[in-house]
Each structure stands twice: as C-alpha cells, then as structure tokens.
C-alpha cells in the first residue's frame, strides 16, 4: 500500500537501476527453471512407468483375446494353454491364488493384529525398540528363501501330521507366506493405532478401564480404517507373491479350494512359462500377459481401496 503510494515520487533513474539488476537475475531464473523441469521429469517418470505397464499388458492381452473369447477366459474350468487341446480358464489359476492367499491371511491377520495391539498398547519402550527391527528383518528376507523353507522344512513337518500331504501343496506355501506378511500387517496396523490421540486413551483409563479394554473398545475402533488398509495391503501382497508358490506349491493348474492339494497361481504360472522356451508372439507367450493383466487389476483394486481407507483415517484426527 505505502510502496505504491510512494512509487510515483521516485526519480526515473532508480527505477531503471532496479530493472537492470532484475535482468541479471533472469539468467539465474532460467537455470532454476531448467533444474525444476528436470526434477519434475523425474517425478513424472513414475507415471510413465505405470502407463508403460498398462500399455504392455493391454497390448499383449489384446492379441490374446483376439484368439480366445473373453467368455472362455472367464468361465472355462480348465487351464491347459500349452496342450494341443488348449483351454484358457483363468478361474483355475485364480482358485490357486485365492486358496493360498486365504491360508496366508488366516495366519497373518490375527497374528499381525495381535502383535500390533501388543506393541502399541502393552509393550514397554524397550520391547518395542527391539521387536520392530526384528519384524523388519523378517519382512526383508528374500521370498525365494521362504519358498525353500516351505518346501524343505515345513512340508516335511506337515507330512508327519498329515501323511497324505503331497510334497507340493498350497498349505505349506500359504502358511509361510502368512509369516512373511505378518510384518506388513503388524507395522501398518501399529502405525494406525499409535495415531489414535492419547486423549482418547486417557478418557478410557480415567473410567477405570484396563489396557485390554482400552485397546479393544477404544483404540481399535478409532483405528479401524487404518487397520483395514493394513489388511488390504496384506491381501495385495499375498495375491502378488510369486516365488514361495513357484517353489513350494507345485505348478500344475488345479481347480481346487483345498489347500492340501498342489496348485498353480497366476504368478507361478507366469514363472513356469518364463522358465520354458516360448517364442515371442506366440499365444502361449501372450497368456502370461493376460494372466498378468488379471493380477494387475486385482492388486490395483486393493491398492486404491487401501489408499482411500488410509486417507479417510488421516482425516479423522
């Protein structure tokens, strides 16, 4: 206000001096703009990656669906793309994916939730500081190693309990996959629980509630959407997990919901084809992209759901 009022009284020469110096700054400004553009390109590159994924999967799947009607893909109950009598029923692979994921989640969700509640509401500072890095290490073990563990350690133990259990089975792979997912579920759920304001806990303790009552009746309901998003991340991990299943569950397509049988999943089928020697452009080559597209759509759905839930729980406080 005062600047504009006094501006007309300034001698013209001063105004010119300022504009000279501004023009010197302009080169600096150009450099800044270039740097900003380069950095923006790096950030935008991630969008390009997503587009490339969608493009590659859709393009190859398109060729696939020119040969195989979508109805066959969705409703056929056999998956024998490499046989002479080829069938392309994705439900066969889906059944393996769903069965192994269900086994994994039966392990990971209860244990992950209990660990999260324990670490956030019961454990002292020391226990938490030691336990959390350990859980992180658990999540950092390569999945091929988990696969080896399932095949050579857990399956023989399970076979002592159920002598009929085949050497490759969805149960053993699913159980180990569950342990692998525990850290994800536990650490995200714990984050959500710790985000619950202390005032709510104090309100509960002030009424004479115990730790467990406070944890179950106040903290858990307040953190619901965050915990739900942790579960969804767990589901998405289970659905996309590859090597444990490729190693320990066998790779024969099998329409079953019985975890004690061997089975192929979407992911392990892709591995099986990639290990073989299918020519680029053949229909067998295209099947893995159609399977991959199915997988991408499933995980995309879970990711967006999880993202939406997380956003909702951030808005609460």
């Amino acid at each position, binding site marked *: 206000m005062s600047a504009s009022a006094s501006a007309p009284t300034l001698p013209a020469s001063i105004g010119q001096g300022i504009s000279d110096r501004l023009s010197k700054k302009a080169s600096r400004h150009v450099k800044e703009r270039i740097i*900003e553009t380069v950095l923006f390109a790096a950030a935008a590159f991630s969008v390009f990656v997503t587009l490339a994924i969608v493009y*590659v999967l859709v393009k190859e799947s398109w060729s696939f669906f020119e040969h195989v009607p979508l109805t066959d893909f969705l409703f056929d109950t056999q998956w024998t793309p490499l046989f002479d009598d080829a069938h392309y029923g994705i439900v066969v692979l889906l059944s393996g994916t769903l069965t192994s994921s269900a086994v994994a989640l039966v392990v990971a969700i209860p244990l992950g939730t209990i660990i999260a509640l324990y670490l956030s509401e019961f454990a002292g500072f020391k226990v938490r500081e030691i336990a959390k890095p350990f*859980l992180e290490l658990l999540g950092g073990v390569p999945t091929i190693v988990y696969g080896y563990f399932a095949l*050579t350690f857990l399956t023989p133990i399970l076979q002592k309990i159920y002598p009929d259990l085949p050497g490759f089975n969805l149960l053993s792979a699913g159980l180990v996959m569950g*342990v692998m997912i525990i850290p994800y579920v536990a650490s995200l759920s714990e984050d959500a629980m710790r985000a619950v304001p202390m005032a709510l806990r104090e309100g509960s303790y002030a009424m004479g509630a*115990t730790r*467990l009552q406070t944890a179950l009746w106040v903290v858990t309901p307040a953190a619901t959407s965050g915990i739900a998003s942790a579960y969804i991340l767990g589901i998405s991990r289970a659905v996309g997990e590859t090597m444990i299943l490729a190693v320990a569950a066998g790779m024969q397509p099998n329409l079953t919901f019985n975890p004690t049988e061997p089975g192929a999943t979407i992911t392990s089928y*892709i*591995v099986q084809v990639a290990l073989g020697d299918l020519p680029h452009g053949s229909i067998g080559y295209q099947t893995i992209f159609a399977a*991959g597209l199915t997988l991408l759509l499933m995980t995309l759905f879970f990711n967006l759901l999880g993202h939406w839930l997380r956003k909702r729980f951030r808005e609460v406080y």
Partner: protein
Amino acid sequence: MLQATDLNAIRAIITRAKRWDLFFSLLGILSLMIGILTFVVLFVDMAIQGVPRLSYEFFTSFPSRRAANAGILSAWVGTILVMLVTALSAVPLGVAAGVYLEEYAPKNWITDIIEINISNLAGIPSIVYGLLALGLFVYYFGFGQSILSAGLTLALLILPVIIVATRESIRAIPQAIHEASFACGATTWQTVRDHILPYSSAGILTGVIIGMARAIGETAPIITIGALTFIAFLPNAPFSGDPPAGLFDWIFAPFTVMPIQMFNWTSRPEAEFQVNAAAAGFVLVFMTLAMNGLAIWLRYRLRKNIKW
C-alpha cells in the same frame, strides 16, 4: 457413598479384567515369538544345511552338472553387476523425484496424480514389473536378456522405496532451515543443494540400502525376463573394453544372479543340489540381513545424533 460389598464387587471385577490383560500380554508375546522364531529357525536350518558347503571353491566355481563341483561365481558377479545398473539408474531418479515432490511440487492435480501413482507403484507385484521388462526392455528396446534389462527392471521396482525415503528424510528437516536459507537470498535449488540434500543424505542412504536389499533378493521379475540359469562364464569387467563401444559391452552380457541360482538348485530333485541351494540361500540371507541391519543401525544413529 459406596458400601463395602460394592467395593468387593468392584475388586472382583478388576481382578477378572486384569486376568484378561495378562492373558492378552502373553498372547502378544507368543505371537511375536512365532514371527521371530520362524525367522530364527529358517536361518539356523539354512545354516546347518548350507554352511558346511561354503568353501573358497564354492565362491570361485561356475555352476556345474555335478553338485559337488558347482559354485556361485557367476551368480554373485552377476548380482553385483545388476545391482550396479540398478543403483546408477534408481538413485538419481528416485532422489530427484523425491526432491521435486517435497520442495517444488505445487498443490495441484498433477502432483496428486504423481503421488497416488507412486503409492500405487509400490503395491504392484514384482512379477508385473517382470512382464513390463519382458515386453519393453527385452523385446521393444531390444536389450535382450541382459544385465541392463535386469538392472533397469529392479530399478523400477525399488524406485518407490527411494522416493518415499527421500521424501521422509526431507520432511524431517525443520521448516526453519528452509526459511533460514531463503532469508539469506538462496534460490530453491541452492537451498536444496546446500542444505536439504546434505542434511537428508543419511536418511536417503538408509532408504537406498533397504531398496537395494530388496532388489538383491528379487527373483520373480528376473525369471520373467528369461534370465538363463546356467552361466559358466563371466561378462567382461565393467569399463574394461576398448572405448567407446567396449566400455559398455558388459551391460548386454547374459547373466545369472544369486536368487536365480538358488531357485535353480531348489527345483532339482537331488539332495546334493538342495545342499547347494541352502548354501546359496545362506549367502543371500546373510547379504540382505547385513544390508537391512546396516540400514536399521544407520537410522538408529541418525535419530540419536540429530538434534534440531
């Protein structure tokens, strides 16, 4: 005023409630133990099986049809070369993207799309990246089943990890530091170069190590691009050939990596190869554990030392 009987009733209720508290505490410790014990059993089992197999020859021999002669030379050399490509491409890209999102990005729909997209990329299964690489790097760009294809694939895979780590360590720098730098007349880039990057470098390094540890153990995307498993030769040492073309011929070489070698041995029926798999697995777990442990230690040091 409360009667004595009332008080006794209250005490009985409290005693019961506390018993549940204790029960849940034990349940919590038990669950934690299941997780941790699985890890210990896995590690010990693999050590018992594999450690006796570890010898100088194991590290300096190529794979072989005979289990006793087979080694992991081509696998660990391949892993190092692939990681080199991954780090060289993912780190600059990821850090640049992280810096842009924290320091430059305006609040608009483009930024929103980039952010949602990055969190979505982090959730895409690794095998899908393998399919992308198969279609794009191997066939469309014609890189073939090479170290370059594998390194770039893993770079895309860990890009979100590095971006998120960069953003978090930048966010930990107080706003006052920004303001102090701007108040001295620094431009945004000068602020980033002289203050933000140096102060956040330890945090970024932590994220890079965690990302690389993940990349080292990734098997599925590498199998998907069709990496060979039986490699009985080494690529040229990097940057050793005649310039200019010879400098980079190593990146187009066929290769194998540790997890692929382990997968290959695991899928053999013979028990001797299972021992090799355990030995390779032990080396692999040791590598990832060491890297994760280093990252955890770095982060711990960081939290202890920095006082804003």
